[in-house]
């Protein structure tokens, strides 16, 4: 109630907000500490969870037991797989026929790695183009068939989740016009997200169009694919088949599926191991700073406490009111901190996959898993010290609290 007898605007909440704004620097300091702590913790947890989510999705989509690539291409291969950075390399000729004759091999899927031209004859420069055989592929073809319910034509392409082209849109590559049949869902792996998948027939048509006057020519090393994905028969041992392929083609390297993302898995394990001590240490630092700031903050508000007590408000009601205020501030700061962490990770996710080489997928479901524990942690860390400090101050008589000095 105001002096004129009217109700104060926004009731008790408005009263508390006006009181809080009387110490803006200390208020800002408390909020900033919680915000920065939530930003740091939220960032670390979301990064780790995003890497694990991307790996799980990518491994499911690759569908291969073995990968046959030329020797010495591990670095560009990793950049191509994780970042979707175009890389061009070729296996020796006639390797497919040799591998298909081996015992234990159930299916082969050769793929040609190409790159779009950085010229006006291509709508997007430096895009990773993957030519696949629609009759044999088991990486993207089943995925597309699941959604489209039909086979792809040679004039259609599949684009990754990060390529900015909608289904049905035209896509001009090397002088040939394709239509986007489907946008694949995001996996956090550049090989799927940053690429365009074209059938072998489409690649041949594109090669033909590229040799017209005024176009950047494209030459495809037919018969020498960049990679051969191998699916094994049930019961076949990956190591044995890999060893046989290695003897057949000494110029090639065979990578088993678990090895493809071994480095990323090791990084996740390292992050997981460091996370608990890091979280504890950060929480200790944040809690110490919050406690110190709460003492300064609530000492500024002792006159308000004295006034409320002298107006008849009970001590428990005052403690509860200011405890709720601290909880609301803490929850708001934590919420903002985690949103900011998610926003920063989302903005920098291409940098994380392409430059840093980590598969990463930020899903809204990851956010849901982190909000509640973060909010509860922030509220507890701020409200408890606040209520303790207020309780300690309320030991004094109202006239002592109302005095400015002492």
């Amino acid at each position, binding site marked *: 109630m105001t002096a004129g007898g009217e109700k104060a605007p926004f009731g008790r909440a408005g009263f508390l907000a006006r009181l809080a704004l009387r110490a803006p620097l200390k208020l800002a300091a408390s909020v900033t500490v919680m915000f920065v702590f939530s930003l740091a913790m939220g960032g670390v947890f979301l990064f780790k969870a995003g890497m694990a989510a991307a790996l799980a999705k990518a491994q499911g989509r690759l569908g291969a037991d073995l990968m046959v690539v030329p020797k010495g291409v591990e670095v560009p291969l990793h950049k191509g797989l994780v970042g979707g*950075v175009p890389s061009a390399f070729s296996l020796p000729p006639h390797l497919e026929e040799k591998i298909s004759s081996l015992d234990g091999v159930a299916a082969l899927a050769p793929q040609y790695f190409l790159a*779009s031209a*950085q010229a006006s004859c291509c709508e997007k420069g*430096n895009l990773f183009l993957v030519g696949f055989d629609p009759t044999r592929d088991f990486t993207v073809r089943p995925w597309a068939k699941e959604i489209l319910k039909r086979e792809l034509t040679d004039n259609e392409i599949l684009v990754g989740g990060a*390529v900015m082209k909608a289904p049905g849109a035209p896509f001009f590559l090397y002088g040939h016009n394709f239509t986007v049949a489907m946008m694949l869902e995001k996996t956090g792996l*550049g090989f799927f997200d*940053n690429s365009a998948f074209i059938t072998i027939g489409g690649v041949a048509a594109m090669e033909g169009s590229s040799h017209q006057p005024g176009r950047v020519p494209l030459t495809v090393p037919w018969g020498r694919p960049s990679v051969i994905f191998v699916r094994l028969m049930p019961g076949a041992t990956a190591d044995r088949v890999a060893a046989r392929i290695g003897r057949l083609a000494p110029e090639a390297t065979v990578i088993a599926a678990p090895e493809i993302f071994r480095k990323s898995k090791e990084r996740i394990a390292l992050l997981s191991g460091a996370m608990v001590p890091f979280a504890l240490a950060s929480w200790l630092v944040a809690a110490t700073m919050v406690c110190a700031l709460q003492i300064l903050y609530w000492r500024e508000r002792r006159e308000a406490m004295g006034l409320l007590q002298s107006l008849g408000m009970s001590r428990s009601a005052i403690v509860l009111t200011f405890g709720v205020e601290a909880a609301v501030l803490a929850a708001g700061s934590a919420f903002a901190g985690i949103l900011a962490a998610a926003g920063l990770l989302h903005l920098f996710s291409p*940098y994380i996959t*392409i430059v840093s080489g980590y598969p990463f997928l930020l899903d809204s479901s990851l956010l849901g898993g982190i909000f509640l524990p973060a909010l509860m942690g922030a509220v507890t860390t701020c409200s408890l010290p606040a209520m303790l400090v207020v309780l300690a101050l309320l030991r004094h008589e109202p006239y002592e609290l109302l005095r400015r000095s002492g």
Partner: protein
Amino acid sequence: MTRAIAIILIVTGALLLAIPVWLFPVCFHAGGGQHARMMPCFATGTITQWLGAATLLCALLVLFASSPKVKMKTGALLIAALAGASLFFIYLVVPGVCRAITMPCRVGTLPAALVTGGVQALAAAAGLAARKRW
């Protein structure tokens, strides 16, 4: 308070000068060749640098203008806030950056400039809100 805001604006202004050329270079400065001058990111990077220079000027005005010159400081903070906010339009709408996801401007320049612009706009807005205390 004004000193703190001015220091933040000096940092963001310097970052906006450095990002498109050295820190997270656009395609032309990342070795894209002469034809990269025709890409939208080249114009965007140049505009970013001009906005960075303007921000530095505004920061120096806020820092060194004498106390009675409130209107000058207000104007400088307003310009800095608008410069930071306008980066979102420049990078996301016109001229924008290259659309291919693996291009250096989209991978590095865009997120770095947007984060810097956001911090600059928030800091300048906080300075404007705290004008009564000058």
